[in-house]
């Protein structure tokens, strides 16, 4: 799938989200122009968003595969399947942290998070990631738990 088609899917996704927003907004009272109510601004904004995102999506869909805008913002590219896997693994580890912090304990999850993320980023061996994870967990315990007195989720471990 060429870049323009991928981008058009992205914009149509924004159209879909804006449509959901619009359907929620029309349940609110619109009011009148002399007395605009809670739904006034959200409805106007969502209509503009639907129109703009659909326009961008259609424009990109109709462009040829190699046609791009001049002077584009610097972007990011996946160079291979390995990059895609690393990307989703990184997100998966963060989801693990969110889900299991309240079950295992935030600092234990933090240790596992840093260990896993450093391995995904390419840190070789076992001892370096373990030391990094342990050091980070201790420092953050001192910072958040002791200095800032922030109560993080606890579980059957710390």
């Amino acid at each position, binding site marked *: 799938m060429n870049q323009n088609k991928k981008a058009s899917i992205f914009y149509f996704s924004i159209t879909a989200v804006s449509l959901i927003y619009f359907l929620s907004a029309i349940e609110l009272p619109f009011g009148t122009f002399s007395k605009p109510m*809670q739904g006034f*601004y959200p409805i106007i904004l969502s209509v503009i968003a639907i129109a703009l995102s659909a326009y961008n999506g259609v424009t990109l869909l109709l462009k040829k595969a190699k046609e791009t*805008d001049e002077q584009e913002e610097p972007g990011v*590219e996946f160079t291979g399947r390995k990059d895609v896997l690393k990307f989703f693994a*990184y997100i998966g580890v963060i989801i693990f*942290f969110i889900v299991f912090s309240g079950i295992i304990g935030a600092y234990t999850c933090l240790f596992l998070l*840093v260990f896993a993320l450093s391995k*995904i980023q390419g840190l070789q061996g076992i001892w370096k990631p373990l030391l990094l994870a342990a050091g980070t967990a201790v420092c953050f315990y001192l910072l958040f738990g002791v200095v800032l007195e922030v109560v993080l989720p606890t579980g059957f471990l710390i």
Partner: protein
Amino acid sequence: MIWGNLFNAFIQTFSQQNLLACFIGVLTGTVVGVLPGIGPVGAMALLLPFSYGMDPGSGLIMFAGIYYGSMYGGSTTSILLNMPGESVSVITCLDGYKMAKKGRAGAALSISAIGSFVAGTLGIVGLMLFAPPLARFALSFAAPEYFAIAVIGIILLSNLTGNSFLKSFLMVIIGMMLSSIGTDPLTGFIRLTFHVPELTRGIDILPISMGAFGLAEVLTTVVEPYSTGDLIKIKAKDLYPTKNEMKRSTMPILRGSLLGFFIGLIPGPSAVISSLVSYKMEKTVSKHPEEFGEGAIEGVAGPESANNSASSGAMIPLLALGLPFNANTAMLLTGLMIHGITPGPTFITEHSDLFWLAVASMYVGNIMLLILNLPLVGIFAKLTNVPAKILMPIVTALMLLGAYSVNSSMFDVILILIFGIAGFALKYFKVSAAPLVIGLVLGSISEEGLRQGLIMSDGSFMGFLTRPISGSIFAVTFIMLIFIIFKNFRSKKIVFDEAV
């Protein structure tokens, strides 16, 4: 009156807590500026939770320090590694790195630091002189004026950010839609929560900023790890510029300061724009234009001064009008509001101590930056040797815990993840995320302005056009829109003609 206020503010600035806050801010800003990845917005978002224990003045001092500190830091890697730490320092790579390769790295770094110091100081003088009268003028503003300023801000921002007006405008609209979630600003009615109880308090700028600017950058390094180039070594005896280099730098520094300050007033990435415009201007007026791109000292002095001065200029609409026109000042606004301070026309009158404290701390901060950046430049440059595989997991952990600590809620961590993925998607599809953040801030301001204005004028839009100030602003906005449409039409016609 000004000098009396400033003197009192200087006394307060030299308190232990405020000096420490200033030092932490400028040091963090410099480090953030040196390291690719996390920018000043991400850094401010990271430090926001830690500022809760500080008083508002110290918090403001710290965040402002991060903002202008990052302008200093970005030039270090531009000159020594040909790798800009921040987008504002891209231009410095052109001549700064070439100077370094000729053995003049120290001179380039010194001129960059001196120019930034002079420009920052002049910018602060401008802030001191312009902000109070603008604030007094803005006391006459009502809802239509605020709506008009929000509209012109949105149009300018959409035009100046990214390559496509419509794409940037769409991002602003999305940001404004997100700002509508939660509590209606006029009636207090809870709306658009999608049956998620945590959304009754709305979507904070913090998780969006941390996600779109912080986590998105971290995810980028997973896919495209940054590599460090060969660090050019500096000898102590070569640290300072020659008399000729100082002489050639003087006028570019002064021109850059003036230019950057006024460009800083306009919405959008003013620091980046000011450095670009300054470079072009210096090349045009230079007696040695052929040296540009090959190591011209003017190509470093002008742009570095301009971007520092722009950061002071950008503070004026924030403090005097309460309107942030770029992501950095939007974070500053969030920091202030968390401490119960709302910048705007009454900020300078009702919290004049805070305003003058901020001004005084900026003077002190600039001196600290000059002291830090000259002798410690080698140490800062070595920070780039810390590999992403060690740094990024730590930054990720800090972001997640920092977000949790704001409201002791895992929901904010979920939001960081969602907006981090969204921010990465925006980068993948080459769309800037900055308009999203600005839209989030301007959304509530523009909604209040529009709805209150319509109520005042009994539903007639003429009420916005017949008032002198709002009418003038809308007239300028209309002219700008015509210009933007004409420019886009002309560029499409040129492409079509060339294709034919």
